[in-house]
């Protein structure tokens, strides 16, 4: 009968199709929604200060049901902090030795944590109190195995505000150990600034560098050879450093989380020496750069002179045929005062690209003192830039006042000096746009070319 044939066929086809439909394998995984942080709200019954008082001179295990809370202030992303978790509360800070090398993933800076202390061991490493698991036989404690960290350290919500305590070197004392501090108006000592590296990145050895404040007090900054910034040269300027205060035996020591916490941006150091703060200085003007004023390339010297104010051009400044391109502006002589070499008056129809943030010019030659520039902006005010020591391309940030300290020796190369105009608006009408100054009683033999903005 035909029926069986067609029955068979239909059966077959239905079977095949239904099997195919049931064979879907889903391999797409949606991104899970970020889970909001939860505060477990454990009952805290001890402060960190009280915890530190539990230490009686030798390694011991904590037997009481104590719970502390604190905020994470250590950050091991840059490799300087290693296998250590440091937390602080209002009463102080303490560190935990943990066998993990990426604590910033689960315990980032600013995360609130609770610590169940029972079972942990307390010891001290050269007078710095530490908590861990077990006696290391050398006065301190062993690390808490990675698997057991969360048995003791309970996660709380992330992104808690941590305000580093502003303090001076003289005020530092034991009670601030393992807390986040901010030192203001400090700088690396003269012999290290701009010369030494944070640590020995080549041999991967730890090193100390020295910070000092303007009163002459010093403190050691200890950095691991494995830190990402170990090979960075310590900056020359003065400013603030946010770090963790630690003690080593009887001396003070600082521990950096990341190199960005060192903000030494003031080019005027204690004692008046001016240093350029060089942060990846541009090697050429950016795309779309325009001349700051007509004649700023010094090809047409008369055009240039027409832009100046009534004081005109100082005597020892001339045009030179040896420009970076074409002709240049030459300063050759020994000023007897801190002279204004020239001051440019803004043109009525000057047009600058939107969002101008940099002013640059080329320099070649030598001088015993340096250059200082005024960029005039809103309502008659002006911003000062001190070039300081110059031998390579430099990026200069503004300073408080004119200073001429520093020497220029470009080794017969054209170098680009770039001023960071962030916060300065050029187009405000005033009677002045730009002025170049030199220091007194120093020999100058410089060429300057192509003053541009971009």
């Amino acid at each position, binding site marked *: *009968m035909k029926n069986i044939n067609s029955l068979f066929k239909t059966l*077959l086809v239905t079977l*095949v199709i239904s099997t195919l439909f049931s064979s879907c394998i889903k*391999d797409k*995984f949606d*991104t899970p929604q970020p889970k909001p942080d939860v505060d477990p709200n454990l009952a805290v019954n001890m402060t960190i200060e009280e915890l530190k008082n539990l230490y009686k001179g030798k390694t011991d295990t904590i037997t009481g049901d104590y719970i502390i809370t604190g905020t994470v202030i250590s950050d091991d992303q840059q490799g300087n902090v290693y296998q250590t978790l440091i937390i602080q509360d209002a009463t102080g800070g303490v560190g935990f030795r943990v066998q993990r090398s990426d604590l910033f993933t689960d315990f*980032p800076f600013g995360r609130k944590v609770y610590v169940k202390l029972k079972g942990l061991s307390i010891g001290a490493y050269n007078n710095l109190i530490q908590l861990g698991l077990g006696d290391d036989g050398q006065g301190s404690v062993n690390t808490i195995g990675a698997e*057991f960290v969360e048995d003791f350290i309970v996660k709380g919500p992330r992104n808690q505000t941590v305000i580093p305590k502003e303090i001076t070197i003289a005020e530092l004392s034991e009670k601030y150990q393992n807390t986040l501090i901010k030192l203001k108006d400090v700088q690396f000592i003269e012999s290290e600034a701009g010369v030494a590296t944070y640590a020995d990145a080549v041999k991967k050895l730890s090193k100390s560098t020295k910070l000092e404040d303007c009163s002459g007090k010093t403190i050691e900054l200890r950095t691991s050879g494995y830190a990402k910034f*170990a090979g960075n040269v310590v900056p020359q300027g003065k400013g603030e450093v946010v770090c963790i205060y630690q003690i080593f035996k009887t001396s003070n020591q600082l521990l950096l989380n990341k190199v960005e916490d060192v903000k030494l941006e003031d080019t005027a150091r204690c004692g008046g020496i001016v240093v350029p703060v060089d942060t990846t200085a541009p090697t050429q003007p950016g795309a779309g750069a325009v001349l700051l004023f007509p004649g700023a390339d010094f090809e047409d010297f008369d055009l240039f002179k027409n832009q100046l104010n009534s004081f005109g051009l100082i005597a020892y400044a001339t045009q030179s045929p040896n420009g970076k391109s074409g002709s240049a502006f030459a300063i050759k002589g020994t000023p007897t005062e801190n002279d204004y070499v020239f001051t440019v008056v803004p043109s009525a129809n000057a047009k600058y690209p939107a969002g101008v943030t940099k002013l640059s010019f080329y320099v070649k030659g030598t001088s015993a003192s340096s250059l200082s520039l005024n960029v005039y902006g809103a309502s008659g005010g002006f911003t000062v830039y001190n070039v300081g020591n110059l031998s390579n391309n430099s990026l200069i940030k503004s300073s408080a006042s004119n200073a001429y300290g520093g020497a220029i020796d470009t080794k017969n190369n054209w170098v680009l000096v770039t001023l960071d105009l962030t916060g300065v608006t050029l187009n405000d009408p005033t009677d002045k746009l730009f002025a170049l100054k030199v220091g007194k009683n120093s020999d100058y033999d410089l060429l300057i070319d192509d003053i541009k903005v971009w």
Partner: protein
Amino acid sequence: MVKQLFLVMSFSVGIAYAQTETDTIKVPQSDELRENQLIFDEAPVVSLDDNDVSQGISSQLTAGRDPFFSSATFNWGAARFRIRGYDNNSFVTYMNGVPMDGLDNGNSSFFLWSGLNDVLRNRESSLGLRPTTYTFGEVGGQFNIDTRASKQWKQLRVGYASTNRNYRNRLMATYNTGLTKSGWAFSLSGSRRWAKEGYVPGTFYDGWSYFASAEKIFNQKHSLALTTFGAPTKSGGSGGVVQELYDLAGTHYYNPYWGYQEGKKRNSRVNLSHQPTFILTHEYSPSNKLNILSAVSYTFGIRKQSGLDWYNVSDPRPEYYRNLPSYLLNEEYRNIWIDRIKENPEMIQVDWARMYDVNQNNIETIKDVDGISGNDVTGHRSRYIIEQRITKVQRANLNTIINATLNENLSFTGGLSYQYLKNRLYKEIGDLLGGEFYVNLNQFAERDFPGSNANQNDLNRPNQILKEGDKYGYDYEMIFNKASAWGQISGTWSHVDAFLSTELSFTNYYRNGLNRNGLFQDNSFGKSDKQKFFNFGVKGGATYKINGRNYIYANGSYSTKAPYFNDVFVSPRTRNSTVSNPENEKIASVESGYVLNTPRVKARLTGYFTKFDNQSRTMTFYHDDYRNFVNYSLTNIDKIHFGGELGVEAKIYKGFSMTLAAAMGRYFNTSRQNAEVTLDNSSEILQNELIYSKYFKEGGTPQTAATLGFNYRSPKYWFASVNLNYFDDMWLDYNPLRRTWAAVEELPNPSDTYDQVVQQERLKAQLTLDFFGGYSWKLDKTFKNMKKAHYIYLNVGVNNITNNKNLITGGYEQLRYDFENANVNKFPSRYFYAYGTNYFINITYKL
């Protein structure tokens, strides 16, 4: 790129876990036989990465006639038995006139046609040094499959199979018109293989296959066939791990690659492959004395393998040695940890939730993106991602084969061949796991050369921000050209058959770097030197036909072989550098045997001896002493493979028959290899080390294998057979690093420590039991009004009936070694286990 190198080579990939489906098809010899014989479906070799299939020839290409061969593939596949201990690249496979082996590694790509069993039935296999009518061949053997439409039997087949191996279900349908009166023939086949989870937890399988062939036979002289096929397959992977993890998990099928994501199992190691092939075949046969088969083929496609990648965080993989309890020194805590794992097995699986959590909360600023000063990007930077390692393939072959009968005794076979291959290898961001971007940096170079641009993977786009789908890491091409010519004279006389053949070939290949990386600024971008090799081979033999039932034969061959790309280029992901002096491998082989062919008994006994000289191989791994990734370019590898093969098939009484097959071989190194050691982060040659590798044995295959089978075939169209299999002389792949002076100089000899470090591990002998049975039901007997012959076939195969879960199919000593303490247990060996009881039940309707 280097990162991928690190991860890939860091022994979590090494050898993918390939399982053979071991149901064989016995190819019918004639229509009549087909009527009476039951056909069991042979599930294809499913390999997760064709590079890692040790031979994989198994099932699909079994020749029913040779009792040894069918046992070798059918019964011993589960133990990953390799015929004569040879690698996959000692065999060659042709389809419709073109060679299908990859020029990059010589491996036959069986996965190209997985699931297409129905159309692969017309095939011939010849083991060893026998002559063929289509190729010069390789020492191991050669296979030829003819899938042209006119060769497919006219039929309609629909089948469904249920199994518990790599996949759980298979649906297959084939329709062939056979050769019609108009001279046209068409063939269509497709299959669907799938499993939400295969035998190993966390492995899913999602595969389709398609096949189409159209052929026109113009007249007696010409025919033209166009064939196309492809097998897009996606599957979740598994891998061998150290014994500690098997013990913690309580099973030999622990899979470190998966973890729960919101309640669903997610596998980090997903393999995807789709390489469609087109073959145009022309056959010209002006007389019955001359036949010229010419074919041109084109294959293109993609292979992807995903994996975890991470930047400057600790290794998140559950199988990383520091994430295991054995890493903890304190015994008390170690035991607490072990107990926790036993109570909470998720602890040793991938923790997806944590990686998402970290990425979703990690805000960072990347400075100077794309090298533009001041171009800073702030956002959620992923620290963990899923990367895709991709190979894009383009292949073309031109091949012609001539068969000419010269006179009543002699015939000539020969051919010309040109092959081209271009592989493009690169990495891609697969999944940002909750973050907004990744950055194209080499964290290892960053650590070693801080503050420089050595950490840039692509100097043209430094600090590149990467989104999903962006290329990163490495990006290079491998380009190959090979031209060859071969010729063979064979003669048949009353008592003697003899042949002599020779082949000449020219091969060249080179690397083309597509990005310039910071570590090798002058040597990573652009074309490398062209590596050129000239190779030849000579093969000959004779068979003496004592009478129609007894034959003896002896064959021998000598050939040279060009070294493979990855063994010549020291670190192709990073640079164009090669080993100092790439040289050809030399292979000499002889075999001799006796064949008995009576109606009651079929038997073959063979002895063989093969010498491989001057092989080379590059291994890359993380070296504890150098704290860096190291390339060991091994040269001067000499090996001997010799042994005997026995296959007997005997009819006992009525429907009962017995099979016996045994392979006893010895495969080992005969030389002290030379290792040129280079660091991934620098191009200098660190040292030339001597490896004391003499007499170390080949791993990954039982060197002794035997099977004893009893089979009953009933006249009522059913059959059953039982096989007892024995495997022995299985050795673990050894770490050459441990057999150097540097490894042992401070160890007292003799001592236990010395032996531990130096001795090669021998795995325990194993026994397994297999069952196969089937029934064939001719429908028109039951439904008398059905016009044509319809059949339903039922085949059942149960492997490893005794559920032996201790059969180690392979494994290797980790290349990472603790030199300081000579502690082999710091980085213990990794093992792969064969499945326990597994089955394949297939029901097919045939019209």
